[in-house]
């Protein structure tokens, strides 16, 4: 099987010759080829130049042998054209004028994905062509809740208290913001699929800050609409810190449910149901230790998945930027080799 076939089959819970692997935030990081590009170009410039972003997105396939090429495209990219002044800093996105009122929301524009983010679509076309089936192109979209948190907080935060206070105090403005983000992200997902994305992963980095009642009442319906818009391809629904709301996350949609490392993969799979594929969940902090610790962790994840059809190996969260590229290469080889199913070859 090619990498692309392997990953797409696993997303559909079909038989595979080996468990497919990719890593969240695999593009970029500490790859020497990437660092060389970074010496000459900013993160923003790379993201906005299709040739560069395509090159960076392809690197992990060439260097690590992963089965999916996730686009080098920060989830905040759509917010600029929507009228938000976002700067990507080393500590995360920073928004000059955070949203604090219904009037602020009224000034946002709906995203015209094909036009506003034409550089992403061009990059997807280049990656798809460059891969030639070696790996599947994974488009990424930020979930409305996570984007709303950034917009209201103005940057990353631990418990998103400002955003949640806004949600409680201004329920109508909150809904209006979520609706705008939902329609825009749905359009962004569809545009990426038209450009050639074969899988779409919806990232909800912060929904784990919500209890089940708020997630269900104020968030999941919006997430569900974005996922439904992307149904032409397999979708991966990833919520970080989802152990308390996992059934609701699965109910919102996704052919594959991404699992963070704060929970047991086997238990999580039981909760989302066997009719879903599952992705995860090696603790990214393990990548910073030596190989024995990484191998032990990877082995534990594979044991929990117990060779059931529909497991996509990944980290439980984004790879630390300082991860040694050699470690990722070894990990891909390890997962492929230790899960090879000869009967399919």
């Amino acid at each position, binding site marked *: 099987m090619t990498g692309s076939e392997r990953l797409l089959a696993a997303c559909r819970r079909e038989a595979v010759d080996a468990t497919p692997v990719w890593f969240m935030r695999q593009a970029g990081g500490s790859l020497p080829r990437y660092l060389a590009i970074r010496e000459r170009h900013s993160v923003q410039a790379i993201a906005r130049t299709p040739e560069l972003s395509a090159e960076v997105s392809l690197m992990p396939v060439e260097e690590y042998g992963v089965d999916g090429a996730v686009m080098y495209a920060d989830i905040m990219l759509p917010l600029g054209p929507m009228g938000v002044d976002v700067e990507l800093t080393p500590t995360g996105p920073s928004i000059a004028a955070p949203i604090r009122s219904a009037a602020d929301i009224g000034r946002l524009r709906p995203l015209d994905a094909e036009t506003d983010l034409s550089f992403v679509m061009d990059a997807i076309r280049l990656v798809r062509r460059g891969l030639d089936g070696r790996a599947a192109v994974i488009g990424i979209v930020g979930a409305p809740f996570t984007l709303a948190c950034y917009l209201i907080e103005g940057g990353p935060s*631990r*418990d*998103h*208290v400002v955003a*949640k*206070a806004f949600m*409680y*105090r201004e329920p109508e403005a909150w809904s209006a913001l979520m609706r705008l983000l939902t329609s825009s992200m749905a359009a962004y997902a569809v545009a990426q699929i038209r450009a050639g994305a074969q899988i779409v992963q919806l990232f909800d980095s912060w929904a*784990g*800050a*919500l*209890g*089940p*009642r*708020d997630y269900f009442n104020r968030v999941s319906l919006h997430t569900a609409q974005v996922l439904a818009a992307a149904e032409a391809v397999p979708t991966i629904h990833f919520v970080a*810190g989802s*152990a*308390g*709301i996992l059934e609701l996350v699965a109910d919102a949609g996704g052919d594959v449910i991404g699992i963070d*490392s*704060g*929970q*047991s993969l086997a*238990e999580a799979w039981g909760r989302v149901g066997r009719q879903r594929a599952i992705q995860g*969940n090696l*603790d990214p*902090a*393990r990548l*910073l*230790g*030596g190989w024995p*610790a990484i191998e032990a*962790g990877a082995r*534990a994840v594979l044991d929990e998945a117990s060779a059931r059809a529909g497991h996509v190996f990944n980290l*439980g969260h984004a790879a*630390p930027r300082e991860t040694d590229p050699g470690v990722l290469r070894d990990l891909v080889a390890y997962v492929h080799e230790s899960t090879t199913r000869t009967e399919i070859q």
Partner: protein
Amino acid sequence: MNDRFLRACRREPVDATPVWFMRQAGRSLPEYRAVRERVTLAEIVGDPALCAEVTLQPVRRLGVDAAILFADITTPLAGIGVDLQIVDGVGPVIDRPVRTAEDVAALRTFEAAEAVGPLLEAIALIRLEAGVPLIGFAGAPFTLASYLVEGRGSRDALAIRRLLRDQPEVAAELLTRLTDMTVAYVRAQVEAGAQAIQLFDSWVGVLSPFDYERDVLPHMRRLFGAIDDLGVPTIHFGTGASGLLRLLAAAGGDVIGIDWRIGLDAAWRQVPDRAVQGNLDPSALLGSWPTAREQAVWVLGEVAGRAGHVFNLGHGVLPGTDPDHLRRLVDLVHGETARGPVS
């Protein structure tokens, strides 16, 4: 004395569900802010009368069913030789983090009377006046170790996790020392009059079940085992630990503290043989009272009348919280759960 809190910890019948709030003493109360205009947090902890006063403020104003000793989780660390400052807006900061075998070996043995004498005196003062049980508390060794290795609070606690990977013997020795310290600290609090103990593991949610079970659980089990003979209820609270609840319960605790990221019903099903504490989202109190009320009623609905519920927030009271909301919340919980006197 109002003992519904202690009864609930033991899963005995109560006349109404007991309520207290993590960080109930602190920045949300105007009388606390008035004290803090004059003195630092360290000065409060070092002055028995002030510490007792601050501990009792929420009991008087809010009508909660338990007092919790006012101290920081890093308070005992000076007693093992750690030089630590509490910096406003940052939290505890340690100038010389503990990172090597030599650093760990240099930590002293904790002598409670010498290290936290004023705090122990405060306990006696609080007991005279409280009219409700006094909860002592301590940080769990993993969370304390994370501060010591990192030098300050950190969202992902990477420094201690890296130490666990790269120098497992050093990390294990550090956790052992901190467990010894915590045992002595907790024992001293109970001997001074604390009637229950809450162990806070604020950073434990960064760990996978695999790592928690291997690296942390054995220390927590030893800790709970070493205070079991004291005969006071123990509350084991971890933040962001929805995926670790069974392991937390396996480590110990008569009451398992639940944060707001999981429904109380789903959480309780994972720890069916324990009392449960929680779990209103503290940020729900930043909205209007009807919003907070609705959310609190939902929490009580999740309990579904089970014995052994201690109502609390899923984390500490946030600084901007209206104290009137807290007072109304206490009344609401008592009113909604009133079952008449129990014999």
